[in-house]
C-alpha cells in the first residue's frame, strides 16, 4: 500500500457539524489536516452533483455531516439528504467507486470530540482504500 495524504471534501451543516468542527479546533483536539470543509446552510441542500463532481475531480472521500434526526434547523433537511446519499450509494459503486468513499454522519454542535474522531477514522479508512486515481487522469 502506498502511503499518501488523502483529500476529503466535507459538506457540513452550518448549524451543527460546522460548529462541532469549530469546537474540535478550539478544544485543541488532534485531527489530521486532510479535510476541506464546505459550509452549507443544511445537508438538505447538498445536490448529488456536488458529490459526483468531487469524486470525478479526484477527492479521496466525501463526507456529508448534519444534525441528528429531529434537530434539523429546517425541520427535516437532513432526512432528505439521507435519501439522496442512499441513492448515490446505489449509483457510484456501479462505476467502480468504493462505497466507503462516501460517508454520512450526524454530528451535533456540541460533539467536537465526535467530529475529531470521525475525521481520524475516515482518514485512516481512506488511506486503506488507496488514492482516487481520477485526480491525475483525464476525465471525460
Amino acid at each position, binding site marked *: 500500500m502506498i502511503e499518501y495524504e488523502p483529500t476529503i471534501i466535507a459538506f457540513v451543516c452550518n448549524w451543527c457539524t460546522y460548529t462541532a468542527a469549530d469546537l474540535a479546533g478550539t478544544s485543541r483536539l488532534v485531527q489530521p489536516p486532510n479535510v476541506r470543509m464546505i459550509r452549507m446552510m443544511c445537508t438538505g441542500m447538498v445536490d*448529488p*452533483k456536488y458529490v*459526483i*463532481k468531487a469524486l*470525478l475531480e479526484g477527492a479521496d472521500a466525501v463526507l456529508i455531516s448534519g444534525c441528528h*434526526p*429531529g434537530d434539523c434547523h429546517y425541520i*427535516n433537511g437532513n*432526512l*432528505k439528504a*439521507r*435519501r*439522496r*446519499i*442512499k*441513492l*448515490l*450509494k*446505489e*449509483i457510484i459503486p*456501479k*462505476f*467502480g*467507486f468504493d462505497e466507503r468513499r462516501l460517508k*454520512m*454522519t*450526524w454530528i451535533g454542535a456540541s460533539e467536537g470530540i465526535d467530529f475529531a474522531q470521525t475525521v481520524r477514522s475516515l482518514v485512516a479508512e481512506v488511506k486503506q482504500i488507496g488514492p482516487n486515481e*481520477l485526480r*491525475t*487522469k*483525464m*476525465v*471525460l
Partner: protein
Amino acid sequence: MTSAKLVVENRDPVESLRSFMKMLIEKEAVAALLVSNHLPMKNSVMPALVDDPGRLEGADPLAPAFPLNSARVLSKLTRKSSGFTTAAILRPCEIRAFVELVKLKQGSTDEVLLIGIDCLGAFGNLDYGRFAGDDKASTMRFYKKVLQGEDESWNGCDISPACKSCEFPVPDGADITIGLLGNDILDSLSLIANTDKGRKALEKLGLASADVPEKRLEAIAGLIAQRTAYRDEMFKATGEAVSDVEKLMGYLGNCVNCYNCRVACPVCYCRECVFTTDVFDHEPDQYFRWAKRKGIIKMPTDTVFYHMTRLAHMSTACIGCGQCSNACPNGVPVMELFRTIAHAAQGAFDYTAGKSIEDDPPLSVFREREFSEITGGRD
C-alpha cells in the same frame, strides 16, 4: 361493462381502430384525441391532436414507430384545465412516463381518458424509415411477423433494444386497454376497462360486453418472460461494460454533450437544466487552470459528470422508453446504461417508476427512521 370486443372489419385492424376513435368523439365519450398519425406529406408517424372525427384518415395507433415519448405532449395539453375530456392513445411506456409527470405536478389525469395499446415494440427513428419506406400499409407487415410469425421482411431492421428489454408490454395504468395479445387481430381486438372512467366511456359506445380471450394471460406471461430474460442479459452486459470509471468513459466516449438524451427524456422534469445554465458557462481561465493541473483535459468538459448527474436526478423516475438512445446522434447506448442503473436505484427504494399515481417518488418523501446503515447504524 369491463370488457368488450372490437370486431375487425375487412381484416384491417387499423381501419377498425379509426372507427373506434371516431365513435369516441361522435358519441361524446371524449371531445378530442391524441393519437399517432401518418404525416400527409411524408410517411413519418408523429402524434397528432384530432378534433374533427372526419380527420382520422392518417391515424395509426398501431404503427411500430416511436418518434418521441408522447407523455411530454400530453403534459403540455393537461397542464391547465380545458373543460372537456381528451383521449390519449399511448404506448404503455408513454402512460408510465405520464404517471411520473403527474406525480411531479406537470400534468393531470383529470380530463384525460388514457387508452393504452398492448405494445409489441417499435423501431428506432432511422429504422422505422427504413422499415416503412413509402408504404402506408407497412403497419400490418409488422404485426404479421410479430403476432403471426409470418416471414415478413423488415429490410434488416429490428425493434429497438428498449422495446426488446421492456417487461411492461401491457398498459396497466390505462383507463382502457386495447388488447392485441391473445387475439387474432385480423378478426377482433379486446377493449378492457381498467377504471371507472374507462367503464363509463365504453358504456357510451354501446358495444356488446364480451369476455377477454382466455389465451390473453398466457400470451402476456410469455412475452414478459422473453423480455425479462433479454433485459437481465442486458443488465449484466452493461454492468460489466461500465464497472469502473475508465470503462464508463469508454462507454460514453462518443458523447458530444449535445444533451439530446435529456431533451428526449420524458421524465427529465426540470424546466431549466443546470447543465445549460451559467453554472457550467465556465470562464476561459477555468479551463486553462484545469488543463494546467492535469496536463490534459477533454473538451467539451463535464461529459461523465453530466451523465452521472442525470442518473442521480432522474433514475428513480426512468421508465425505460429508450428515447434517450433514439435521440443520440452518435449511437451511445444511453438506454442500456440508464435502465441498468435505474433498476438498482428504484430497487433501493422499493419503487417502480410509472406503476401507480399513489406511490410517492422516492426523493419527494422520507421517514424519520429508515436507512440507518447510511449513517453507520445511528438514526
